[in-house]
């Protein structure tokens, strides 16, 4: 028997396959396509304090091997999540990781406070790629100090696992990763989307109503892997790799480079049952490689 389990702090996952926030709805949407109980865990769409309808349309653009999105954190809000979405998730036999964000540091704390009363949540993923309203819209996550502040304040009010999800739109990921680790993060997930844009050469208009959006999908995989590599060199807490993962080989690439688990994003759009396929193929990969435990490939990059 191949052992696919991995540990994020004291959170034991059946396997390293998590779903990426914003690409798997609140889980329910995928129940026709995936046996949700087979997943390592489900990371839900970013929750904010209040419900948000999101940005105007068009919000999505297809690009070469990728896509841009500017959904604008459309979500049901923390209250409705607890009443309408969480009960379904809580009944599943998988780990539930709730991704949260705020537009001020206090809002981050407030969202977690509200969720603390609810049952069935195993971990929080802190989305620091939100525009910081106070700082003119620059992402919180581009500043190590603010990243640390948010992490610390959340760690103070919860015993649940806290994962900080980093933005890639920065010169060096190391200081931010270190700041999150020092502030007590149990794990770091990386990366969120890369800022990009697209233009229609005929109408001369941006293809997204909000002009810029976030690039995801296989196009960014090499970039995500390099960020992971950099982070893995400086921190000791578990890393969760994200960015362009389409299949089990990609998962292995990320784990070898230093990820304990991974999140699957855009791939769910291309094939809603992809997570299940990947879990199967990961077992096959282990068999082919003569590995008993997938854990054994974590951080095993061979460098001369």
């Amino acid at each position, binding site marked *: 028997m191949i052992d696919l389990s991995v540990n994020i702090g004291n959170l034991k996952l059946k396997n390293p396959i998590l779903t990426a926030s914003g690409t798997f*709805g609140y889980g329910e*949407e995928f129940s026709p396509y995936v046996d949700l109980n087979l997943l390592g865990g489900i990371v839900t769409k970013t929750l904010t304090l209040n419900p948000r309808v999101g940005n105007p*349309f068009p919000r999505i653009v*297809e690009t070469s*091997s990728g896509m841009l999105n500017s959904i604008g954190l459309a979500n049901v809000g923390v209250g409705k999540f607890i009443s309408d979405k969480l009960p379904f998730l809580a009944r599943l036999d998988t780990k539930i990781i709730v991704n949260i964000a705020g537009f001020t540091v206090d809002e981050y704390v407030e969202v977690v406070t509200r969720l603390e009363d609810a049952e069935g949540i195993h971990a929080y993923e802190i989305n620091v790629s939100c525009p910081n309203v106070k700082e003119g819209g620059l992402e919180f996550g581009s500043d190590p100090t603010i990243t640390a502040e948010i992490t610390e304040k959340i760690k103070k009010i919860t015993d649940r696992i806290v994962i900080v999800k980093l933005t890639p739109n920065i010169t060096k990921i190391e200081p931010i990763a270190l700041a999150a680790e020092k502030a007590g993060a149990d794990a770091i997930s990386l990366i969120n989307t890369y800022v990009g844009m697209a233009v229609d050469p005929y109408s001369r208009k941006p293809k997204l109503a909000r002009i810029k959006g976030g690039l995801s999908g296989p196009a960014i995989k090499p970039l995500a892997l390099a960020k992971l590599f950099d982070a893995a060199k400086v921190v000791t807490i578990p890393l969760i790799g994200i960015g362009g993962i389409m299949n089990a080989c990609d998962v292995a690439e990320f784990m070898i480079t230093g990820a304990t688990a991974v999140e699957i994003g*855009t791939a769910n759009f*291309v094939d*809603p*049952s992809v997570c299940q396929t990947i879990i199967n193929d990961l077992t096959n990969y282990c068999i082919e490689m003569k590995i008993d435990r997938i854990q054994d490939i974590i951080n095993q990059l061979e460098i001369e």
Partner: protein
Amino acid sequence: MTPDQTRNRVSYSHSSEIISSHRLSPDIHRIRFDNPILANNTLPGQFINIKVSTTNTPLWRRPFSLHNVSKEEGWVEILFRVVGIGTKMLSQYRQGQCLDILGPLGNHFIISHIYMHSGIMVAGGLGIAPFLFLSKLLLKDKIKPILFYGVKTASEFCCLDEFADLGVSTFLSTEDGSLGYKGFITDLVRDQIDQVADKQHTTMYACGPNRMMNTLGKIALAHHIKCQVSLETLMACGVGACLGCGVKANSEKLSYRYVCKEGPVFTISEIDLSD
């Protein structure tokens, strides 16, 4: 069945063999897929999402209405126009090749046996696609199908034979006057609506450009005719996850409806097509 109930139906993804692929005009193609499960579990207005390439470009699947379905023979057909890379690739597949199809997706046109004597279908261009399938179901339910079908120029008409064989009453328009009424199909509808149907016992089904459907909505409203429209938007996922396929809801406070999941068929009053 209400659209709500269909939302919980199982939708499948699997490899389907192409039984035939035909070019109907320089840029319009029809493909028939072998897929008995799908054929047995779909209703007109629903769509399928096809992975047209085996690589990451194009990345997204491409959505197509179910155009024609045979439960008995276990196949489904799509009718499509080549407009870009995805439809180009699709047009080049040949009999015997297999494609990964996801579906049925979305809700469907609602047919009410209780009050309907006729169903008025209004198609603009490739909006004709779902109406062959719908016509067959209307006929099965002994409801008279009436088709208004407008295109730019006569060579763009598709499937006129099929509709004629079924005995669908058909009203045609072309923008250049090369066949049928000269002008927009909406003008023809406005002209003819009083003659063709008993307004209390009919439903209007529309599929085409948003502007056409917006105008039709007004006509339907003015005549107190029920009207269902089938919408198209960009779609990354087709399953309600990406939140990319919204249209404005017709409500006081800004809100959106998602076409892949809450549609593609909407009652005209649910949505705001004004821009």
